[in-house]
């Protein structure tokens, strides 16, 4: 509404201005026409300047613009006076439009706040505010509705869209017994959910809180600009004053020419372009990152990410899945499926993680199958009769114990050898699986300028080094205890070049001290883990390490824009000031250095939000 009124005033003023320029009137009528145009467009600026002076605020932009334009009128340059005010107002309008638009687009992005919950009470369904729902209450979520609170699915199955939280476009399947988080959107089935967390504790509230308070930690670039702005304006105004008074007195020239030059200085004295475009760029960058499913808790972290030289990974849960699974089946004289079947049957009563993963890999029902004589041989494996055949399944020592020739293997992970009726039948390799995109993550990080990648793990050397080599990681430190990880990160911090930063990536659960020690601590797979969200500076909602490279690219883009804007704005302003001082610039160039630069810098800043290519 306010913007619309300003726009109408600007247009009216501009029309009168055009009349003044085109109709050949002179004398008092010319002044009247331009003065009318001036007051319609800029009356409020002059008024604000007067009010603020009464409050003791002198060097604010209202005052400077009023002074410059009124000065132009006094030296007889009516059109310039009006034009400066007109463009200033257009610039202000554009600025508030751009800022509002980017605020709104972040709000849209985070349009995950549920408005209501369907509470089920004694057979009836009532629509209530999510705040009113208690832990243990039953809620119903229909297709197309947002899940309002965290809980567990009691009945129903459906596909849920998690993209608002994870940036993941593939919907997730949920069914009876699944954990479900607020912020998901139910796509097709009716879900009945038992609430497990109050609204304030639910995922959606925590994330909104985090995003809304994100930019409270400022980057160096931002602090520099506010400091610069503090001195820039008074200095330029003082120079303008000197320019208006000293040369005419010393050189005994006419005042009007030098006053005109001083007025150009006043027009250029506003640091608006920088002051607005820098936070706008950072804000856009943080918004863009959250569009990729990465929450950055402040513009200082975005800045630090862009300077990352060393990236340190925790292995388990970050680069690897942290769950054991069969990664290789190497049969001998039998089929791979047979080998798995015999192993699965022989190990069917064991709850050891290795046995569980073999059964999972076999993937078929095991009951009603002929098996007898099951006997665990502690520390070695198991023996059983399956389908009338004698099976031994276990480690190398079991094979040696039974005098069975077996293939020695250098594979990392746990190896289960199998023998059928005393003959070797091959082995099954079980290891912690490397995540699908881990290799790509390392490659992309290197491409985006990271000089060193390091892996830390509590695992033994063979396993750790094999993973590091497979992924192309530069350094691996194995068999570390938690405090060993902190020590190692401290050493790496000393080794890196001073202006760069060190990033640590972990699962956020066991590595809080390391997360705190690094310049930027990133927690992965944090969706649903409150502790991780609290502890980290940057939170990756999904399990994908490749998002680290994505957010790094987003941060580099934002910082590039910040630098472009600083250099561009300062260079143009400095050039126009010098030209004006020597009488080569008019007020029109002054307006460009002020409003033009502002508009261009803002347009550039808005690019920071566009991150499609990194998603």
């Amino acid at each position, binding site marked *: 509404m306010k913007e619309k009124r300003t726009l109408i005033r600007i247009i009216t003023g501009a029309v009168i201005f055009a009349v003044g320029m085109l109709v050949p009137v002179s004398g008092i009528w010319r002044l009247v026409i331009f003065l009318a145009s001036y007051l319609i467009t800029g009356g409020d600026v002059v008024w*604000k300047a007067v*009010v*603020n002076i009464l*409050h*003791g*605020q002198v060097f*604010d*932009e209202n005052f400077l613009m009023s002074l410059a334009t009124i000065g132009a009128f006094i030296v007889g340059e009516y059109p310039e006076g009006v034009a400066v005010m007109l463009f200033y107002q257009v610039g202000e309008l554009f600025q*508030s439009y751009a*800022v509002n638009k*980017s*605020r709104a687009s972040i709000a849209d992005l985070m349009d995950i706040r549920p408005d209501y919950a369907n509470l089920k009470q004694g057979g009836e369904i009532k629509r209530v505010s999510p705040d009113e729902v208690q832990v243990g209450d039953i809620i119903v979520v229909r297709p197309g509705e947002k899940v309002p609170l965290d809980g567990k699915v009691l009945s129903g199955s459906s596909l849920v869209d998690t993209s608002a939280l994870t940036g993941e476009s593939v919907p997730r399947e949920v069914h009876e017994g699944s954990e479900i988080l607020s912020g998901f959107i139910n796509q097709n089935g009716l879900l009945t959910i038992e609430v497990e967390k109050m609204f304030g504790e639910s995922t959606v509230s925590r994330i909104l809180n985090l995003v*809304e*308070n994100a*930019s*409270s*930690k*400022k980057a160096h670039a931002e602090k520099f600009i*506010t400091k610069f*702005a*503090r001195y820039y304006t008074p200095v330029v105004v003082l120079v303008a004053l000197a320019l208006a008074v000293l040369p005419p007195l010393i050189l005994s020239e006419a005042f009007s020419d030098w006053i005109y030059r001083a007025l150009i200085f006043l027009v250029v004295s*506003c*640091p*608006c372009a920088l*002051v*607005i475009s820098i*936070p*706008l760029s950072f*804000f856009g960058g943080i918004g863009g990152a959250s569009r990729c499913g990465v929450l950055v808790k402040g513009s200082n972290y975005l800045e630090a990410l862009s300077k990352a030289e060393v990236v340190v990974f925790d292995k388990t849960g970050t680069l690897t899945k942290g769950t054991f699974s069969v990664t290789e089946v190497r049969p001998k004289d039998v089929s791979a499926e047979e080998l798995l079947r015999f192993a699965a049957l022989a190990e069917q009563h064991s709850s050891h993680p290795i046995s569980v993963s073999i059964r999972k890999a076999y993937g078929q029902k095991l009951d009603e199958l002929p098996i007898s004589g099951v006997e665990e041989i502690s520390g070695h494996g198991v023996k059983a009769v399956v389908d009338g055949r004698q099976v031994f399944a276990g480690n190398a020592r079991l094979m040696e114990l039974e005098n069975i020739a077996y293939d020695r293997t250098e594979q990392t992970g746990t190896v289960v050898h199998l023998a059928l009726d005393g003959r070797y039948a091959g082995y099954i390799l079980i290891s912690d699986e490397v995540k699908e995109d881990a290799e790509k993550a390392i490659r992309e990080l290197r491409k985006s300028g990271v000089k060193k990648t390091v892996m830390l793990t509590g695992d033994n050397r063979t396993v750790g080094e094999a993973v590091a080599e497979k992924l192309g990681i530069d350094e691996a430190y194995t068999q570390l205890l938690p405090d060993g990880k902190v020590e190692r990160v401290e050493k790496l911090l000393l080794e890196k070049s001073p202006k760069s930063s060190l990033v640590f990536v972990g699962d956020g659960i066991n590595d809080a001290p390391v997360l705190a020690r690094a310049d930027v601590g990133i927690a992965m797979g944090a969706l649903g883990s409150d502790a991780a969200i609290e502890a980290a500076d940057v939170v990756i909602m999904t399990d994908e390490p490749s998002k680290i490279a994505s957010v790094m690219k987003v941060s580099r883009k934002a910082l590039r824009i910040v630098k472009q804007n600083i250099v561009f704005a300062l260079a143009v302003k400095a050039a126009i000031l010098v030209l004006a001082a020597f009488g080569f610039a008019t007020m029109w160039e002054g307006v460009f250095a002020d409003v033009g630069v502002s508009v261009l810098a803002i347009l550039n800043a808005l690019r920071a939000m566009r991150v499609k290519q990194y998603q």
Partner: protein
Amino acid sequence: MLEKVIILEGLDCANCAAKVERAASRIRGVDNANVTFMTRKLFMEVEDGKLEQVMKELDEVIHRIDSTVVLKVEK
């Protein structure tokens, strides 16, 4: 120490945001004042027992900088 978040409604000049931040941090009893222009929020820590006095002064200094801003306490 009490953490306070104040919404500065109508704050639409980035330079004023910087001025508000400076003015707020000069108030006695305020620590770590921080204004984010994009979200129009002022974060600060207020010493125990000084909240009322701080809010009064804050209201005054902010209106001196920009008379159109309305203060709303978020928490």
